[in-house]
């Protein structure tokens, strides 16, 4: 693939440019993390390493509670998004109206957070009022509180936001899967579910797990939609926004930003390392295939 006629410096320069862009994208984050470990905070001339800011953050009950909510939200979002993304990908494979379906599934990517959040907020408020009215009209209290802003509405908002990403990742993994194997399993007597669980799922597992990681991170980082739809509780990112806007660039904000980026990097780092290790293994297997085993 390398252009033999170009000077090696040409290639090296391009690599340098690429890495410089990666560096520029990541540098601010690492700089922020650096500040979060400085006793004297941002702008100080001396650097004294400390965990103090983190201690303050993790000692704050409100923040710990918000971390708990963040976790619940992420778990609920995964529980809803991943099965749905699997269903969507399967639906995509079998439907003949692919373009319309994909347009519906991917268009949330193009609706900015604040716009989608506002629309859903008004939608849920109307829905809650609608159900309350219905309950009154029927004289039952059963409908009270349906779609009142709260955990459920926040989860719905996050599902709409994270689903397109999970859908794409799973679809790409599935595109390497051969349908004949499902049919072969059916011919062996498997039900549709057994064929999926025994044959297809083991082969797309990697995609499902990486989309789980993906959704976790997206959910963890999401602030705007949750802020609008959450009702009574706060997630960690909500707290960080409030902190940044109200108190400004305090030591705690840096520590909170540090926590957010470190968690994300740990999750994505694990996935990347796992993927690379797996790719290595697959490559070794491919090499083995290139030198076929002679039949004995």
């Amino acid at each position, binding site marked *: 693939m390398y252009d033999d006629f170009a000077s090696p410096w040409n290639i090296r320069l391009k690599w340098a440019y690429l890495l410089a862009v990666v560096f520029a994208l990541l540098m601010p984050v690492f700089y922020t993390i650096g500040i979060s470990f400085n006793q004297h905070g*941002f702008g100080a001339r001396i650097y004294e390493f400390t965990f103090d800011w983190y201690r303050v953050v993790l000692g704050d009950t409100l923040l710990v509670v918000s971390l708990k909510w963040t976790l619940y939200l992420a778990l609920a979002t995964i529980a809803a998004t991943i099965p749905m993304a699997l269903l969507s990908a399967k639906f995509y494979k079998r439907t003949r109206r692919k373009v319309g379906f994909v347009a519906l599934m991917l268009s949330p990517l*193009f609706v900015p957070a604040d716009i989608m959040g506002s629309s859903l907020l008004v939608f849920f408020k109307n829905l809650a009022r609608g159900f309350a009215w219905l309950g009154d009209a029927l004289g039952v209290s059963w409908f009270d509180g349906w779609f009142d802003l709260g955990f459920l509405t926040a989860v719905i908002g996050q599902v709409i936001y994270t689903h397109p990403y999970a859908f794409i990742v799973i679809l790409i993994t599935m595109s390497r899967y051969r349908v004949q194997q499902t049919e072969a399993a059916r011919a062996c007597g498997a039900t549709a579910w057994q064929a999926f669980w025994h044959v297809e799922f083991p082969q797309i597992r990697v995609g499902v797990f990486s989309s789980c990681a993906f959704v976790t991170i997206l959910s963890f980082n999401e602030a705007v939609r949750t802020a609008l739809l959450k009702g009574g509780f706060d997630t960690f990112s909500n707290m960080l926004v409030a902190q940044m806007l109200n108190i400004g660039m305090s030591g705690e904000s840096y520590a909170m930003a540090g926590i957010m980026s470190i968690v994300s990097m740990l999750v994505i780092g694990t996935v990347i390392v796992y993927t690379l290790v797996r790719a290595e293994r697959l490559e070794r297997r491919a090499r083995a295939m290139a030198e076929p085993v002679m039949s004995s």
Partner: protein
Amino acid sequence: MSPSPARRGRELPAPPARWRQLFGENGIQRWVFYIPVVFFVLFFAAPMTLTVVWSVFERTQFWMEPGFTLFAYDNFFTSARAENYLYSMLHAAASVLISFVIGFPIAVFIRRRVTRAAQHRVILLFILPFMISELVRVFAMRPVLGRNGVVNSVLMDLGILSEPITSILYSPLGVIIGDVMSFLPFMIFAGFLALEAVQNYVFEVCDDLGTGRVRLFTDIVLPLAAPGIFAGSVFIFVNSMGVALVPTLLGGPGAVNAGLIANQAIVALDFPLAMAISTIMIFTLVLLLYIGHRLFDLTKILEPIS
């Protein structure tokens, strides 16, 4: 293994039971696959469509009531909001352009000069920053670009500057930098995906014909990658317009974009106004996608996954 009449039909399945008809592949199992469609129509398509209706409702003190009034639109177009909206479009366009200039060559480079096996690993390099909270990344621009920030101090230590630059942060420039830093990876992903769908022989034929660098770019790479570039551009454009966080954290006192205007309207409990802004934003988006589709046939983007 010889055929015996007794074996004929031994493993014939049992006749269909009632529950099988209900839960079998002709029953519920078939409809389960429609759950995502129903969910997205209900909680995405419906709210987005209904914004148009709500935008013409009458505003009440804390909520709104059914009616028909263009007051919200009047409010939008006759105030500074319309001007701000146009300015945010301008800033968004600038972000798209800068992202393209910085990012697209990287996509081309990865597709053309990196070996197949390594391509996805290089792409992973750009997924990493994207995976860190946009909130943190935008927030981090403050200490980086600020008066005592790392850029200023490094430049001053090197003797290039004698005084810190303070005009970047809390200005339109700061907003554009923030947007580019936030959304640049998307240009690289979209461009790369579009180019990945191009078969290698296309480039080989060009080499064979002796196509020059410039012609290769304008005649081959750009047209083939156009749908992807367009999708990436629209993504960056609408998010630059719609993500309120960037102007909130990096813009000056007057810096707003469409997202922030909507957000402020919600905070002020002017729901019809917020819905009007959403409507205008969605209309802008649909218009862009429609134009893009007419120009480039965006369904081509789906080829790698179909």
